[in-house]
């Protein structure tokens, strides 16, 4: 069995992002970049399946600038086998990401495509579902548990509003992962060294036959309204009085 894991390069979640003064976007110059945390969980899960013996090969795929090879090497150090970098300096919107991944799926023919449920920059939560539509695969979104079963089925427990729901999907399937699926490991030094020798294949949207066609234009990015600090109340009586409970 083969798993394809999509990886996005985003501003590190510990960075306190700032809106650019001209309101055209977020300040990303000299900002630390990292693997999207949800994608990291997807890589971890794929590697765990491999370690358990239920998966033979884990392939990472990333769409981004050439610097994204840093994130792919980090993913390979988790234990993934090889990686594909689709190089572009353009902004790639969810639908185009799904179209590019669709091409990779057609080439690689994975049994499962694992993705993070959303990226922590654009917060779209769309790519996995769109890829499932284009490939006509079933989808298990927001997974907190994944179990392979026979024949050719995967059981996915999803985190939904109000609790958990379990679905059975026929393979091949697209699964997007939620935070509580696992806690990603820290790569060990030997594995980091090993990752340096693993293969990263370079390609581009054009050579895959996808011409990017962004449908959304960002007109403005602004800071949210700032809440002002309020008043101090002395005791419970005053609080109840203010709130008119």
């Amino acid at each position: 069995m083969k798993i394809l894991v999509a990886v996005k390069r985003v501003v590190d979640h510990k960075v306190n992002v700032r809106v650019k003064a001209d309101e055209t976007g977020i300040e990303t110059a000299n900002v630390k970049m990292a693997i999207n945390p949800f994608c990291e969980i997807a890589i971890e899960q794929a590697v765990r399946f491999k370690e358990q013996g239920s998966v033979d090969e884990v392939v990472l795929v990333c769409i981004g600038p050439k610097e994204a090879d840093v994130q792919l090497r980090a993913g390979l150090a988790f234990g993934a086998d090889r990686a594909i970098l689709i190089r572009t300096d353009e902004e790639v919107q969810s639908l185009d990401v799904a179209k590019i991944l669709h091409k990779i799926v057609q080439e690689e023919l994975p049994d499962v495509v694992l993705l993070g449920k959303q990226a922590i920059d654009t917060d779209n939560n769309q790519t996995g579902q769109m890829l499932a539509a284009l490939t006509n695969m079933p989808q298990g979104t927001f997974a907190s548990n994944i179990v392979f079963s026979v024949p050719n089925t995967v059981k996915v427990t999803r985190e939904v509003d109000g609790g958990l729901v379990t679905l059975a999907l026929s393979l091949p399937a697209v699964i997007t992962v939620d935070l509580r699926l696992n806690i990603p490991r820290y790569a060990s030094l030997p594995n980091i060294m090993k990752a340096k020798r693993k293969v990263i294949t370079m390609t581009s949207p054009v050579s895959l036959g996808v011409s990017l066609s962004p449908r959304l234009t960002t007109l403005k990015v602004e800071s949210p309204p700032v809440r002002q600090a309020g008043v101090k109340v002395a005791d419970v009586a005053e609080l109840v009085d203010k709130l008119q409970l």
Partner: protein
Amino acid sequence: MAILIVADHDNHTLQAATFSVLTAASEIAKHIRDTELHLLIIGDECQSVVAMAQGITGLSKILVSDHQIHQYPLAENIAPLIFSLVQEQGHCNDENRVFDKVEYSHIITSAGTTGKDYQPRVAALLDVAQISDIISVESADTFKRPIYAGKAIATVQSSDAIKVLTVRSSAFTAASLTTELLAIESQVPVVALAAQADSGKSAFIKAELTQSSRPELTTAKIVISGGRGMQNADNFELLYTLADQLNAAVGASRAAVDAGFVANDLQIGQTGKIVAPELYIAVGISGAIQHVAGITGSKVIVAINNDPDAPIFDVADYCLVADLFEVLPELIAVLKVKD
């Protein structure tokens, strides 16, 4: 032209989020000349939902797909249904064999876990973008939405002919429902859609839903949350007691969830639920930026914490610097007397 609103329901009643989506749809309609609002109800044995929807003012039509395959909402079945409705740009009323020509400009639903599941799938089938979690309508093609977990607000414009949207329901006030029983002629007309085949690709196995008599976290008017300051799971009983007195929902910070005090479906913040109640009471929560991102839409925020430097006080409207283990019992006692 028409806007297609996909209803949130549990096969018995329409959920509150639908009424917020109706408000968002009405705001879009203001920017389009001659448009109608159509409500799509996909379910199984959902007659009571349809009956409830017939009393909604402003709707021109209700489309119903009442079929066993929709007992649980599966994206693999819902997306082709919506796609065919929109792609054919019309639909057939079985009984009267009347074919309505409709052009849908927008497909809109709430950004709950169900809408987030099928809307991108619908958009990809239509080869259009999807816009997630809109918090305001600027025009028929321009919307505001939070990015970076609400640390920035983006204004985005779509160039697609059909806009596929999900709405952050807490950002829109709920539209009203006509409560009196309407005469048949003033009820919203209902169109039954033809049955469709199951995709055969996915199947519902089981649901483990949290049982609670309290209001749902994302729609409650009052939310009381506990943080690491609660110290243990047993102390959350204090919050439950208070919540029941105020008809409030109970939430928690990530720290409280990670410490195992409460289940993770109570988590509020960047990686949990986003809430925007009339009143938010943060008890023993320091106010990490990830938590604050999930509560900034609240009308009034109250913080109770014994640390006067806690960052939660920077965003709270009313700040009480005190020991929560003294404050909570006192508050419970005061409210009991008022009852």
